[in-house]
């Protein structure tokens, strides 16, 4: 804790654009630069943080308990992908928590006050310190090197959750306008246009029309998704990354084909929304309040359109928010009905209050009831492994549903080593708003443990496709694979569903959804 913070290029992310901060009415929007000495802080910043800290201690038992009970056994240390990848001791989860804890001991505990009054040198013994500019900078630097993945929390004998600490720390930093731009601007975009990428309604529809053309080219079938349609039975919300960022777009194509298939066969009735066109929630990386403000659109839109329930697409932290926060924040959703699959009649009892079902749960149920016609050989060119997204595994427990779907749409599936999957899964390295460009070194460091496990199955089984159920994963792992394990591509689970699904009236498919030739169709340029 004595080593002064050294903010390094490649690790830190750029400061928030003041326009974005201002747009959503968060405090102290200004131009500032992390590597400059002066951060243009408000004069009373210490007072603001101190007051904010007190408030959060009184509001969250988690913070209060986690501040007090850590014994520093060190079990969490080598569980963090950022520590494993960077070797920076301050990336050990215990020290990330000590960032806040040291100030907490100094300002809010009896022991800290007594010891502090004896003399400054004694503070070190109990790990207490005063919040000064250096400490603040250390907070900022290291709280934006945590992806809130909760892996450390699995191993902690008290369940201390560093994500909880990071969330509070970032809330405090936001009180004095210290966000990073890769979070702040998506938040502002999402607030205004409904999605992080700032896609306006007409462009959203254009993009989907474009995908529809692709589907027609590949399958000969014209699909027609509907938007903002009142009276539909189900609303579909997915991360906007699926609409605009490869390879997530192919996952989006997969959803469109699935919905079209169900509509033709069983009269399935679903609508997309341009207003609630974002599943992800970067507000979660800003503050609880911002999370609630962005999340509110889902229920608001469901109510406006008069749907019965909601299906959510493949995304990680989106699902942590939906599963653990949404109903509490913006519920009760008493204007919706308990979700029942119109095709199989399955009641989704586990979602009867929140009324939102994960698409992997939905599709797994369809497959179990033999409702999909699938040609698995169309995924035969893929040797697939599956990356559990942090949030769906440790903040929900969605482990088997996606695996069941994958195993039923493709023939070659290989698991990564046991200590790197399921609840022990490693973060892609870019979660919780760290998927920027300027911090690429940090992202590649954090991505190392995951990539290393992929490399293992790549070499052992020839795995060439890394599947996942998270939009950030699809973007982040693509870069990480390119850097660490060339030869492995990234896919969403529903892209593989789309590949295998036999649409009514389709032509003989020559290519997969990426327009690459299917096995046996390579005519001229064999791989």
């Amino acid at each position, binding site marked *: 804790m004595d080593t002064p913070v050294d903010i390094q290029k490649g690790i830190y992310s750029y400061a928030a654009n003041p326009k974005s901060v201002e*747009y959503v*009415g968060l405090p102290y929007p200004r131009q500032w630069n992390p590597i400059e000495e002066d951060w243009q802080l408000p004069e009373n910043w210490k007072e603001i943080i101190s007051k904010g800290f007190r408030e959060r201690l*009184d*509001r*969250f*038992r*988690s*913070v*209060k*308990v986690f501040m007090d009970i850590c*014994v520093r*056994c*060190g*079990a969490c*240390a*080598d569980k963090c992908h950022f520590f494993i990848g960077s070797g920076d*001791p301050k990336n*050990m989860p*215990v*020290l990330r928590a*000590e960032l806040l804890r040291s100030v907490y001991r100094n300002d809010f*505990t009896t*022991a800290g006050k007594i010891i502090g009054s004896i003399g400054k040198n004694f503070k*070190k013994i*109990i*790990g207490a310190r005063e919040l000064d500019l250096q400490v603040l900078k250390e907070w900022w630097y290291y709280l934006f090197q945590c992806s809130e993945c909760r892996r450390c*929390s699995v*191993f*902690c004998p*008290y*369940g*201390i959750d560093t994500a909880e600490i990071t969330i509070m720390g970032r809330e405090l930093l936001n009180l004095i306008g210290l966000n990073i731009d890769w979070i702040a601007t998506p938040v502002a975009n999402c*607030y*205004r*246009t409904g999605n992080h990428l700032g896609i306006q*309604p*007409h462009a959203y*529809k254009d993009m989907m029309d474009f995908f529809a053309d692709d589907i027609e080219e590949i399958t000969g079938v014209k699909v027609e998704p509907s*938007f903002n*349609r009142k009276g539909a039975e189900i609303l579909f919300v997915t991360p906007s990354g699926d609409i605009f960022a490869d390879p997530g777009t192919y996952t989006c194509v997969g959803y469109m084909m699935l919905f079209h298939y169900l509509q033709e066969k069983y009269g399935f009735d679903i609508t997309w929304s341009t207003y609630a066109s974002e599943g992800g929630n970067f507000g979660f990386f800003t503050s*609880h*309040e911002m999370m609630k403000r962005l999340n509110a*659109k889902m229920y*608001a839109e469901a109510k406006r359109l008069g749907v019965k329930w909601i299906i959510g697409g493949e995304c990680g932290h989106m699902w942590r928010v*939906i*599963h*653990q926060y949404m109903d*509490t924040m913006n519920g009760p959703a008493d204007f919706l009905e308990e979700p029942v699959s119109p095709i199989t009649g399955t009641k989704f*009892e*586990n979602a009867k*209050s929140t009324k939102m079902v994960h698409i992997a749960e939905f599709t797994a149920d369809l497959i*179990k009831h033999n409702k999909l016609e699938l040609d698995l050989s169309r995924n035969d060119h893929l040797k697939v492994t599956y990356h559990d997204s942090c949030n769906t595994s440790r*903040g929900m*427990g969605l482990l*088997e*549903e996606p695996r069941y779907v994958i195993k039923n749409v493709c023939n070659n599936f290989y698991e990564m080593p046991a*200590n*790197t999957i399921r*609840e*022990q899964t490693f973060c892609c390295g870019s979660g919780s708003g760290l998927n920027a460009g300027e911090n690429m070194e940090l992202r590649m460091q954090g991505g190392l443990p995951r990539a290393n496990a992929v490399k293992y199955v790549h070499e052992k089984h020839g795995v060439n496709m890394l599947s996942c159920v998270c939009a950030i994963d699809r973007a982040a792992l693509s870069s990480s694979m390119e850097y660490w394990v060339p030869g492995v591509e990234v896919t969403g689970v529903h892209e593989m569903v789309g590949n295998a699904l036999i649409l009514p009236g389709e032509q003989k498919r020559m290519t997969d959804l990426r327009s690459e030739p299917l096995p046996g169709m390579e005519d001229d340029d064999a791989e």
Partner: protein
Amino acid sequence: MYSLIAVIILFLLAYVGVKFPGGEVFFGIIIPYLALIIFILGFINRVIDWARSPVPFRIPTTCGQQKSLPWIKSANIDNPSTTGGVVVRMILEVVFLRSLFRNTKCELKESDKISYEWEKWLWLFSLTFHWAFFTVLFRHLRLFTEPVPACVQLVAKLDGFLQIGLPGLMLSGVALLAAVTFLFLRRILIPQVKYISLGSDYFPLFLIFGIAFTGILMRYFTKVDIVGVKEFTMSLVTLNPHVIKGIGGVFYVHLFFVSVLLVYFPFSKLMHLGGIFMSPTRNMVNNSRAKRHVNPWNYPVKIHTYDAYEDEFREKMIEANLPVEKMIAPETPEEPEEKE
């Protein structure tokens, strides 16, 4: 270092202190009573303080399959969907240190493979430490009860089943000392653990080492007058305290160390004893989608409504054939300012 010095000073304080007139009353009666009161009030106060903060969200760390579709087997202990599951999870956590049992050690192998091997030593010694400490504490009930309950006698019998030496060797004492030594050594030998260790981590280790050491010293070496000790402890229990002559300095050091530990307890990380029960990531049912969890301080927030959204994009939406709530009025509203 400071912590070691502190414990040595405490040792001398008690050892020398009792030799002064009134020292035995001070270290034998006043300090222990005071310490016990501080411990009890401090402990309760801390737990109440935690309990005063609400748990606004249902945030269990899920370590297994959720309960979703009926044909998928869920992990009701590691990802509890019922209160029963939570109870079992907590029992495993508190009694067997379940999460620590998962501990792995990350190592680089063959220059480019990262391996995560099961690391059982921390778990094993932590478990030993806590169980040994508990057993020792439980055995001490024989000094505070008359007649001594059968269960206490049974535990003492089991503890000494090796029947080595006279007085019979108690395993728990040795185990406690060994475990404390291990926990201390890993703090100074494993670089990352050394880096995170604070004075307040070493202090209780030294103190507990001191308690175990003086205890063993009295039992096997200085052969403390156990009848006298019992007479004294019973006088404390019956709130009729009086000093018994000739118990010896080591006993007072032992008692003083225990008193210091009691006072230190509520103000330190040792409160993990109480905190573990209140940890929201462990003691909650993962059923937040099935059953609504209420946040007592949930407050309304400003949101960007659909109407505001449509007002901004209506023209473009109509052009793209997207349904709208309101058609455009004859006098087209001014195009809102484009952001960026």
